[in-house]
């Protein structure tokens, strides 16, 4: 009967329609714009290497922002990208910190993960297992801008030594800048300079060997580095130095948190005494920054004259970046960043304002439903060392690099999905 035929046709059309009914969004064709990503290299320090949780380890390396950028660059003609990964069997790398739980008072218990480290010897100094193979991610934890032209630097930094073909102590001729530029490259990212002020800040200004790099020396070296990187017409992106004073390293242990802990046993105490960088003892104010390791050092209130609670036994200078020292940090960071922006503008490089970016996210922001802030552990942005980023934090940085590259060079590298990357791991 005719109607049966119609029913069958309708069912057939319905099935066909349902099978082909995937909604389409307008097609996106990523393009490389005026840049060439066929060999991208990443130059920088711990932030470039993927350092996190106070260590460099395989998972961190895999989640470095250059790895993420390089993966996205492949959609616009980017080439292979090699990071000097630790072996799977030595995945703990240099060893790193892990969260083991919380005390009944809600304070984190931090432990060490170092069962499968990549330490090849500890005498006469700690050396890491050599990496053999191609390198695109040249991130070296600890390197300062002031180190990039030192021929013996391979003997001074075991993260750098492991990339070099020659063993310690015979690395006396390979400067970092020459090493990274020894093979042709078409595009680079350079994020250097953080350590020229970071060591001063994290040691509470107390380490005579780790004072800020002179501003003029910094400016001169940064221009040298940019010249060398662009000598063969490579295009690139550089980044500013983050606001160190906004990291959890300086904002987790506070005057108020210390006093609150003291009040449990000594409710009348309302002053913490500190030793300043100028060797003066005075009462701490909210403008002084206590460093994160003071929490696990468990010093406050200990001893016959309770530590930090009396002028005769103040908190030592290494645990506190006092107001004056914090001013020095701010001043140097601002100066370095002016240099970086000026050089980038002169050389026509894309620039990532990491200072502004991490302040913005650090102040509290929601990303795809994830609350992000500079809060220690719960903020999803900073790893357990309070300075370096979580994989999610690095993903946010990677996207900012991509946006900056796209806007400078007219490319359309797709961004990474930030939600695929984690914050701090919980037991």
């Amino acid at each position: 009967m005719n109607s049966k035929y119609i029913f069958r046709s309708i069912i057939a059309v319905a099935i066909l329609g349902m099978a082909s009914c995937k909604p389409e969004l307008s097609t996106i064709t990523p393009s490389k714009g005026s840049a060439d990503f066929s060999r991208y290299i990443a130059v920088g320090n711990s932030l470039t290497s993927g350092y996190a949780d106070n260590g460099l380890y395989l998972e961190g390396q895999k989640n470095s922002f250059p790895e993420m950028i390089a993966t996205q660059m492949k959609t616009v003609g980017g080439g292979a990208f090699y990071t000097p990964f630790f072996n799977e069997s030595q995945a703990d790398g240099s060893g790193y910190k892990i969260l083991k739980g919380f005390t009944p008072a809600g304070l984190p218990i931090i432990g060490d993960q170092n069962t499968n480290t990549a330490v090849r010897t500890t005498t006469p100094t700690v050396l890491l297992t050599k990496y053999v193979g191609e390198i695109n991610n040249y991130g070296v934890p600890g390197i300062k801008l002031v180190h990039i032209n030192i021929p013996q630097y391979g003997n001074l930094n075991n993260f750098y030594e492991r990339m070099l073909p020659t063993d310690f102590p015979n690395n006396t001729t390979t400067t970092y800048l020459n090493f990274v530029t020894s093979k042709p490259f078409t595009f680079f990212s350079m994020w250097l300079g953080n350590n020229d002020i970071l060591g001063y800040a994290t040691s509470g200004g107390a380490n005579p060997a780790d004072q800020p790099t002179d501003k003029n020396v910094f400016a001169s070296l940064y221009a040298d580095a940019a010249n060398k990187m662009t000598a063969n017409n490579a295009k690139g992106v550089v980044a500013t130095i983050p606001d160190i004073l906004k990291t959890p390293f300086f904002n987790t242990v506070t005057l108020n948190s210390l006093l609150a802990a003291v009040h449990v046993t000594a409710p009348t105490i309302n002053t913490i005494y500190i030793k300043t960088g100028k060797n003066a003892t005075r009462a701490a104010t909210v403008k002084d920054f206590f460093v994160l390791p003071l929490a696990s050092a468990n010093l406050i209130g200990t001893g016959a004259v309770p530590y930090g609670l009396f002028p005769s036994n103040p908190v030592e200078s290494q645990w506190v970046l006092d107001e004056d020292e914090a001013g020095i940090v701010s001043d140097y960071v601002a100066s370095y960043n002016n240099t970086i922006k000026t050089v980038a503008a002169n050389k026509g490089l894309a620039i990532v304002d990491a200072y502004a970016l991490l302040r913005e996210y650090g102040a509290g922001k929601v990303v795809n439903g994830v609350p992000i802030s500079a809060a220690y552990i719960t903020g999803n942005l900073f790893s357990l060392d309070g300075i370096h980023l979580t994989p999610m934090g690095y993903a946010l940085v990677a996207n900012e690099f991509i946006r900056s590259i796209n806007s400078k060079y007219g490319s359309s590298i797709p961004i990474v999905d930030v939600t695929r990357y984690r914050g701090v791991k919980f037991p």
Partner: protein
Amino acid sequence: MKKILLSCLLALPVLGYSQSFQVNLQGQKQTAMGGAGTGLALDEAAVFFNPGAVSFLKKNGVQAGISPLYLKTAFRENGSNVTEYNKDKIATPIMGYAVFGSPENRLRFGLGIYTPFGGAMHWKEDWTGRYSVTSLDLQAIYIQPTLSLKITDHIGIGGGLVYSLGKVDLRKALPYTLNDGRQASAKLKGDAKDFGWNAGIYVETVSGVSIGVTHRSQVTATVKDGDAIFDVPDAIRDRVPTKFGAELPLPATTTLGLGFQPSDKTTLALDVNWVHWSKYKELAFDYNNNFVSPPSPRNYHDAAALRFGIQNQTTNRLALRAGIGYAFTPVGKGYVTPEVPDANRLLLSAGIGFKATERFNIDFSFLYENVEKRNETNIETQLSGEFKTLAYIPGISFSYKW
């Protein structure tokens, strides 16, 4: 017949939607006519469309139908080149109506079981928006005993009490990663039992135009003591709640419908719906354990839908139907969420009615919904990207008249 009705009920329907999470698939004839039918005394589904028209039905009858709903949504985060799709999952809104009492009497009785609100959105567990939602199953089955009274030969009024059985199952990822790399997640499951009403008036004018006005009340689906199942790391397990409460307004709908019969064989219907969505201000969960979770703003606004349908009784046994409609979204800029990625939508429908015997009818419908592309950044989650949804909804119902 009984068996089909029973199996439909046992299928525990999960629902699709046709304006935000409102479902407009309540009768196969009306669905085939763009969802219009308030101004007509067409069949037993008048229990839903206009209780005032029930007393104008020529015969008593019972019908049961189902509309398997295939909904496909695409999402692409702004700046990304990856398009993500929701999972293929067929939702099955059901409908069943009965009209009884003597057709000669002025007073008639009706019973309706239908699903006016629901949602079934399932994303992949690792998709970009998983911290907003990974899946939502929402269903409200309304059971509506109805009285309809013909006041004069041309005016009928009717009303029904609505007993609503609601169910919600909402899942999302939480931004905590376990040591084994697993993602923490939350699942909220609860039931609601609530009351509402449905009333209408039906007027046949001398000009041949019939007019219907109906109002279905808001039902506030209230979940008490729902299960909050959190899969979180041990380190924070003692801080998460185990129970929740929530209220979800299933908004009132006011409809003006017109019917017109230009010839013996042809029937036209036009409906204008006004859905009082502005009552849906926020989605708030009230947890035990002092767990703090700020309400999620929705700030819906009232929204209209226009529906036009035509039926042609081509032969004694065969009726052909078609319809077109347009539904305006109640979701304002910045409030689009991936559990209901709503936008204005175009509805196109067609259908066939087949009279197998004098008493036994089969009706088919097919509804196509094209939801406009929408690029949004959600104010609360900052999920930013483009959504596009298409829905294909075939439907079938069986009816028996006496």
